[in-house]
């Protein structure tokens, strides 16, 4: 699943924005063709790290929108610092991406 990340620094705080291509199925939606409920498929965990050190962990549920856009902020990040986001979902699928603070 594709992932995009962006950073934005203002007033000593760096906002980390991550956009992930993911269906975030709740398990309640009915497939119009099969008439069966589409099983839940959603990101459960997002781990944010800066320069290899974990700064925050987000737990998500099915009420987070499709193609989740999650934003957090960190202190004292400098241009060039490595920001990594790793995610895992309820089916065991994972993804990760690293960018440099702009």
């Amino acid at each position, binding site marked *: 699943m*594709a992932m*995009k990340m*962006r950073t934005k620094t203002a007033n000593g705080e760096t906002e980390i*924005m991550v*956009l992930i291509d993911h269906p975030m199925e709740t398990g309640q939606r009915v497939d119009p063709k099969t008439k069966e409920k589409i099983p839940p498929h959603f990101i459960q965990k997002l781990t944010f790290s800066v320069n290899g050190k974990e700064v925050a962990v987000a737990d998500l549920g099915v009420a987070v929108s*499709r*193609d989740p*856009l999650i934003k957090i902020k960190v202190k004292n990040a400098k241009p060039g610092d490595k920001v990594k986001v790793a995610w895992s979902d309820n089916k065991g699928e994972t993804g990760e991406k690293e960018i440099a603070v702009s």
Partner: protein
Amino acid sequence: MRSARSRALRGLLVGAALVGVLPTLGAHADPAQDLKQFREYFKKKFPTVRFHNYASGFYALPGMDDYRSQWEAFNEFPPYEIGLDAGRREWETPFKNGKTYASCFVNGGKNIAQHYPYWHEATRQVRTAEMDLIDCVKHNGEERAFTTADLSKDTRARVQLANLTAAFYELSQGQRVEIDLSAPGAVAAYEEGKRFWWSRRGQLNFSCANCHMDLAGKNLGGNQPLSAALGHPVGWPAYRTVWGQLETIHQRYATCNSQVRAKPLKQGSATYNNLQLYETYLSSGLPLSAPSVRN
């Protein structure tokens, strides 16, 4: 920039197949006069909305502050970035013969989208960016899902085309719409589009004008007010949150026709091409904002 415009109009189609019958000209066709009246209509209807803000779609209309701030939140990191990335990759990836999409277009495809759709004299038809992109693939001896599938039915193929078209429009972002109607055939196609625009259709018996002029800014009992026609096309291909993906403007025409319970027409149909020509001409002077989040 007349010469550049003429070059753009030559497009890339080879062969001179005559398509259909030459439409009859409207007796007093005067697009420039239509344009003047159209702009005056909206200036009078929404005196506080500045002309260039219409490029934002209905988020520019009065009373839309709450929706606009949600839209601005989306724009900080637009949801269509993933689809747009796929489109950018497609645009940049060379064909097997080593050429890229850029080679099919005047100026490498940069700063030309503001002239689309255009009247192509050689084939006597209106051509859209989608059509030129499809033909670019064929011209280079290749196929894609969007060059072979029925785009009215195959969502995946159509979204693939929408992503690519979005990447193409992105190269002209900010350029002001400028449509050449100097050819008689162009004016005839414009008049066809105009006829469609003003005709009532569907069980709900609405014309485009009823909703997007008379009722622009008003809510028809749902969750969204109707958009103003001024600025309609400049945000397309667009991402609607209900779709969760970029889509073509013809898909919006089709779904809108369905919403008034009229029969939706096919992607790439001459009727929608002509409608798109009419609508886009009426947005002359507005800056392209595609791709964008729209309603």
